[in-house]
């Protein structure tokens, strides 16, 4: 059985460390917030101008002036702070954020990521994704291993316009986990999802990775 989206998020959450400042992308990465280990102090950054993102509000607590980067209503925590967009991206571009977990359309074997644009389709924009992959110390891409037609999304070279070059340090998919140490060029398979065989993941991976 491959991992569900929630299990993928839970696996990515194992990469969190006490004291980390973390930015979670829209989609599956948002689910990582539900798996922060108890007792661990992790501060979530929302790039629209907040550190210390709290849970969704109750109906009575909804405040239109308090949203996350996905434009969802949220709440504060006792440790929360607000700031403007330039300060927010000073945190991101200045290397002050420890970890970014983001979705991907494609990741290449050399750590390039594409997640903002499909040529010929309506382009919505990159938002803060290019800043995050260029500025955050460690970036984890969290995505389904194959697309709807069964084609690998972890590939030799991205075919879509890039969000960033050589910036992904770990790949977590529904089939397994790959990572590479700083300065290391190639990814290595670290973990298989339960009941996923090496044959299966190899067949579904176009990228040249270290399998042993």
């Amino acid at each position, binding site marked *: 059985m491959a991992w569900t989206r929630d299990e993928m998020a839970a696996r990515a959450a194992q990469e969190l460390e006490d004291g980390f400042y973390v930015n979670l992308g829209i989609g599956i990465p948002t689910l990582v917030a539900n798996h922060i280990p108890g007792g661990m102090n992790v501060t979530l950054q929302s790039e629209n101008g907040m550190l210390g993102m709290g849970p969704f509000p109750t109906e009575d607590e909804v405040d239109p002036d308090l*949203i996350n980067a996905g434009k*969802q209503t949220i709440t504060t925590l006792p440790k929360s702070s607000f700031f403007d967009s330039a300060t927010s991206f000073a945190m991101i571009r200045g290397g002050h954020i420890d970890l970014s977990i983001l979705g991907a359309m494609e990741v290449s074997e050399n750590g390039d990521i594409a997640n903002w644009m499909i040529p010929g389709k309506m382009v919505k924009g990159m938002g803060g994704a290019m800043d995050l992959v260029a500025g955050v110390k460690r970036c984890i891409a969290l995505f389904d291993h194959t697309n709807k037609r069964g084609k690998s999304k972890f590939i030799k070279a991205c075919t879509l316009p890039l969000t960033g070059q050589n910036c992904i340090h770990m790949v977590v998919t529904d089939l397994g986990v790959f990572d590479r140490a700083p300065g290391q060029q190639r990814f290595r398979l670290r973990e298989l999802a339960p009941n996923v065989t090496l044959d299966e993941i190899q067949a579904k991976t176009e990228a040249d990775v270290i399998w042993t």
Partner: protein
Amino acid sequence: MSKVYPTATSALEGLCVNGLTVMSGGFGLCGIPENLIAALRDSGAQNLTVISNNAGVDGFGLGQLLETKQITKMVSSYVGENKEFERQYLGGELELEFNPQGTLAERIRAGGSGIPGFYTKTGVGTLIGEGKEHKEFNGETYILETGLKADLAIIKAWKGDAEGNLIYKATARNFSPMMAMAGKITVAEVDEIVPVGSLDPNFIHTTGIFVQRIVEAKCEKRIEQRTVREA
């Protein structure tokens, strides 16, 4: 000369000419100057270049200016959530310049601070870096981005006084403090104008030097994604 104007329309009087470059604060629909956008629409000014992180939604926020085809160019980081935008863009009626969100914020901050350009790693090796000057610092490659200014900045704050001092509420702050600096004329729409002296000088976010006009106006504050948990 008072900075305080009685209505959004009067606060924009004499400013809304054709071909204007306008910065408009807000992230999604959070912290947008709703009444000033409506007043800009009603002015009928054409051929506007609008610098704003997003382009509103259909019929609300900057979507109102798209409906009337007053905008010819948008500079933004993300423009989903807007069918009319998509229609005009795909039809070639609307020019669009994407900026990474942090690059956009920093370009505005730089423009307002007298900084004509800066180097950043964001966008290196992507479409954003194409055609831009590349330079190495300590073995890493950066691209040159330029500062942005505007003829007019319209922003939204929580409380302000007659001097133009402003404080913002929660995440409604976003781009407004930088836009206040980068506008030749900055007009602030606030929930409440308070007496001079009642804002604690320690906690003013935008100082009055950056704000030329201020108006108190009631906002709808529409929510894009009302997401709640059980009480």
